[in-house]
C-alpha cells in the first residue's frame, strides 16, 4: 500500500511536470509579446527592450523554463508581469473562493443528479423519466452566461432572496452554486439512470426481485452502488471542468475566484499567473482523479487495487 501510494505520488509529480512543460512551451509559442503588453502604447523600443531584459524574456526557452522550475521547487510561482506581485499570494487569496464554489456546485449537481437519475430509472419509460430526461437536456444545452443571468434576474433582482453579487456569506454562494449545479446535474442524472437501468436488468437483481426483496432494498442495496462508480469518476472529471469552467459564473456573480484571475492574465499574457493557475488546477484535477481511483474499490469491492 505504501509502495502504491508512493508510486502515485511520483506519477502525480510527473504529470505536473508534463503540464508545466507543455504549458510553458505553448505560452512561448503564443504570438504575443508580454513585454509589449506591459510597455503599452507609448513605449519606445528601448523601454520594451529594457522590460524584456528585466523579465528575462530575452533568455533562451530552456534557460527560462529551468529558472522557472528552480523557483517552483522552492515553492515560488514567480512574480506577475502586470501586477508586479507574488503569484503565489494572488492565487492563495483567490483559491478558497473557487474551492468553496466548486464544493457547493458539485454538491448540488450530485444530490440533484442522483435524485433525478434514480427517479427516472425506477420509473423508466414513464412521464417522470421523460421529464427528467428533458430537463437534463435543457440544463446541458443552456449557455452558462444566460442561465446565470436568468437566475440572477429572477432570484436576486425580482425576488431579492439572494444578494446579486459578492462573496462572504452563505447567501452569496447559493446562486452561483445553483447555476453550476443545475446545469451540470443533467450529466449525473443521465449517468445514474443509465447505470441503474443496466444493473436493474442484470440477473442477480432479477433474482433478488424474484426472491421478494423490496424495491427500495434493491435500489439502494444493489442498483445504486453500481451507479456510484461512474458518479465518482464523474466527480473526478468535474473537478477539472470546474477549474476551467467557472470563469463565466464567477464573472456574472462577481465571485473572487481564480477563474477571473486566469481570464485577465490570459488577456494580458501574464505568463507567471497563467502558469500558476494552470499548475494549481492541474494539481486539483490530478488529486480529484486520484481520489476517484482510491474510492472506486471501496465502493465496488470487486475492483481490486492493482
Amino acid at each position, binding site marked *: 500500500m505504501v509502495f502504491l501510494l508512493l508510486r502515485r505520488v511520483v506519477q502525480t509529480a510527473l504529470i505536473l511536470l508534463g503540464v508545466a512543460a507543455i504549458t510553458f512551451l505553448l505560452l512561448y509559442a503564443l504570438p504575443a509579446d508580454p513585454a*509589449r503588453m506591459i510597455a503599452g502604447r507609448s513605449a519606445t523600443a528601448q523601454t520594451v527592450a529594457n522590460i524584456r531584459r528585466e523579465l528575462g524574456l530575452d533568455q533562451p526557452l530552456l534557460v527560462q523554463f529551468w529558472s522557472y522550475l528552480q523557483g517552483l521547487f522552492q515553492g515560488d510561482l514567480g512574480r506577475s508581469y502586470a*501586477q508586479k*506581485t507574488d503569484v503565489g499570494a494572488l492565487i492563495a487569496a483567490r483559491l478558497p473562493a473557487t474551492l468553496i464554489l466548486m464544493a457547493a456546485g458539485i454538491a448540488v449537481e450530485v444530490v440533484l443528479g442522483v435524485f433525478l437519475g434514480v427517479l427516472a430509472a425506477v420509473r423508466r419509460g414513464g412521464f417522470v423519466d421523460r421529464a427528467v430526461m428533458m430537463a437534463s437536456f435543457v440544463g446541458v444545452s443552456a449557455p452558462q452566461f444566460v442561465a446565470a443571468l436568468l437566475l440572477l434576474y429572477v432570484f436576486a433582482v425580482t425576488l431579492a432572496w439572494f444578494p446579486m453579487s459578492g462573496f462572504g456569506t452563505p447567501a452569496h454562494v447559493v446562486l452561483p452554486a445553483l447555476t453550476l449545479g443545475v446545469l451540470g446535474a443533467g450529466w449525473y442524472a443521465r449517468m445514474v439512470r443509465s447505470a441503474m437501468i443496466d444493473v436493474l436488468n442484470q440477473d442477480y437483481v432479477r433474482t433478488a426481485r424474484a426472491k421478494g426483496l423490496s424495491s427500495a432494498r434493491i435500489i439502494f442495496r444493489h442498483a445504486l452502488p453500481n451507479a456510484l462508480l461512474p458518479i465518482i469518476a464523474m466527480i473526478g472529471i468535474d473537478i477539472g471542468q470546474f477549474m476551467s469552467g467557472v470563469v463565466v459564473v464567477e464573472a456574472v456573480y462577481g465571485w473572487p475566484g481564480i477563474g477571473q484571475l486566469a481570464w485577465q492574465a490570459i488577456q494580458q499574457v501574464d505568463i507567471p499567473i497563467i502558469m500558476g493557475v494552470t499548475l494549481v488546477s492541474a494539481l486539483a484535477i490530478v488529486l480529484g482523479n486520484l481520489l476517484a481511483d482510491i474510492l472506486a474499490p471501496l465502493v465496488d469491492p470487486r475492483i481490486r487495487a492493482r
Partner: protein
Amino acid sequence: MFKSWLRNSTVATALMLAPLPGFAQDAPKQGGDIVITYKDDIATLDPAIGYDWVNWSMIKSLFSRLMDYTPGTTELVPSLAESFEVAPDGLTYTFKLRKGAKFTNGREIVAADVKYSIERAVDPKTQGPGAGFFGAIKGFDDVTGGKTTTLEGIEAPDASTVVFRLSRPDATFLHVLAVNFASVVPKEAVEAAAGDFGKKPVGSGTFILKDWTVGQSLTFERNPDYFIKDMPHIDKFTVEVGQEPLVALLRLQKGEVDIAGDGIPPAKFLEIKNSPEGAEIIVDGQQLHTGYVTLNTKVKPFDDVKVRQAVNMAINKERITRILNGRATPANQPLPPLMPGYDKAFTGYAFDVEKAKALLAEAGHPDGFETILYSTNTDPQPRIAQAIQQDLAAVGIKAEVRALAQANVIAAGGTEGEAPMIWSGGMAWIADFPDPSNFYGPILGCSGAVQGGWNWSWYCNEDLDARAVAADSMSDPAKAGERQAAWGKIFTDIMADAPWVPVTNERRVVAKSPRMGGAGEIYVDPTRVINYDAIYVKQ
C-alpha cells in the same frame, strides 16, 4: 509668480478661470460614500507602472504631480507646483513647489522627491511603461542605457525648487509632467513596500488607499490634508472589481452601485436610454478617441495609395454608428474633434462606392482582391468588423475577418508583413495627454513602424516626421497657435496618403446613480475618465 506662469504657459487662457459649465447650477456638496464597479481587477496602483484606463484615474487621485488639468477639461494648471518659468530657449523649466504640501505619511514634499520619482519611472529596473515620455530630459539615454540611475537633467537646488534641463525643446513637456508617470512618490514608502508599492501606495493626492481585498474591493478615503481646500468632495469610495457590466447595471438600477465604471453594454444601452430614468443615469461624453482601420502600406495591394483611398471611400461610417446605437460619430481624420489642432473644415473621403470601384480598377484590381481584417473579440468589435467586411465586399474586396484576443492582434500588427488590415476597436488610440503630437509618433510616425511597434500601417513619411519634429520644437507659448495649426496640417496631409481609414469618434458612456452630481465632463474626463476629485453626491 502667477503672472509669470500666465505669460509662459503654453496653454494659459482665460478659460481656466471661468467656472465650469454645470458647476454653476448646483454647487458641489461635501461628504458621501459611494460604490464604483469594474470588470477587471486593479492590476497595480504604482504610478510608475500602472497604464490601463481603469487604474489611470485612481492613480491620478492617489498621487499629485507638478502639473494637472482643470477637471473635465484639457486645460493644464499647476498642481503640486505653485508656479513655473520656462527659459526663452525652451530648454530649462524651473518649478517652485507649493508650500506645506505633504505625503499622506505626514512628511512634507521636497524637490528631491520630484527628482527621485521621475528617475524611478525612467529606471529600467522599475519595468515601467512610461519611461519614453521623459526622453527630452538631459541624461535620459544614460539612465535607460543602464549607465547611471540619476538623471543629470533634473536638479533640486533647494527644497522647494526643481529645475529641468532638456536636451531638445519639447512643446509637450508640461503635459508630460501631468501624466501619471510623473507622480511624486516618497522614497521611504517605496523602499518599505519592498517591491509591492503597487499594492501599498503612498502619495499626496486627494485620496488615500485604506483597504485592498485582492480580487474583491478597494476602499479609498478622502485625504484631509490635501493641499487644495474643498477637494475632493466625497469622503470615501469603494471600488468593487470582478463585476460583470450587465450585473453592475442591474445593481445600479437597484441603488447598490453609484457608478458602473465599464459603462453600459450595447445590449442594455437602448433599454436604459429609452427608459424614464435614462437621462439621469447615462453620462455620455466625448473622449480623445478615434477608431480606425489600419491599411498596411507594406502589404500588397495596400502599398498602392489608390487602393488605400478606395477603401477609405468604401466604408459606410454612418451605418457603423447606427450599429453602435449612435454612441459614436463618423470620423474623417486621425485627430478627434476635442483635440487641439482638429480641422473642422476638413471633409476627408466621402462614402462613394462607385468612385471606390473606379479607383480600384485604376489600380489594377477591377475585380477586387482577397485580404484579411483583424479585430479583437469583444462585443461590439467583431460586429463592426463584419460591417466593414460587407462594405468591402460591395466594392469587390473579399476580406476574411479574424477576431482574436487583443494580445494576438497587437502582436500581428507589430509584425512586418503580417496583418493587412486591423480594425482598432477595443484598443484604439486614446490620448495620454491632450496634445496632437500624442496622436502621431507611435501610431503614424516612422519610429512606430518597427517590429513590435504600434504603427500598424507601417506608414513612414520622412517629410512628415521632419515637420512633426519642427512642430514639437515650437515650445515658445507665443507660437502655440501656430504649432497647433502645423499639427493639424500634418494630420490632414497624412490623409492624402490614406494609411488609415478613420472610422468613428466614440463617445464614452458611463452609468451613474441619480444621486451623483456634477457635470458630465467629470465622469468622462478627457484626461482621466472618472475624475474622483470632482464628483459629488447630491443632498
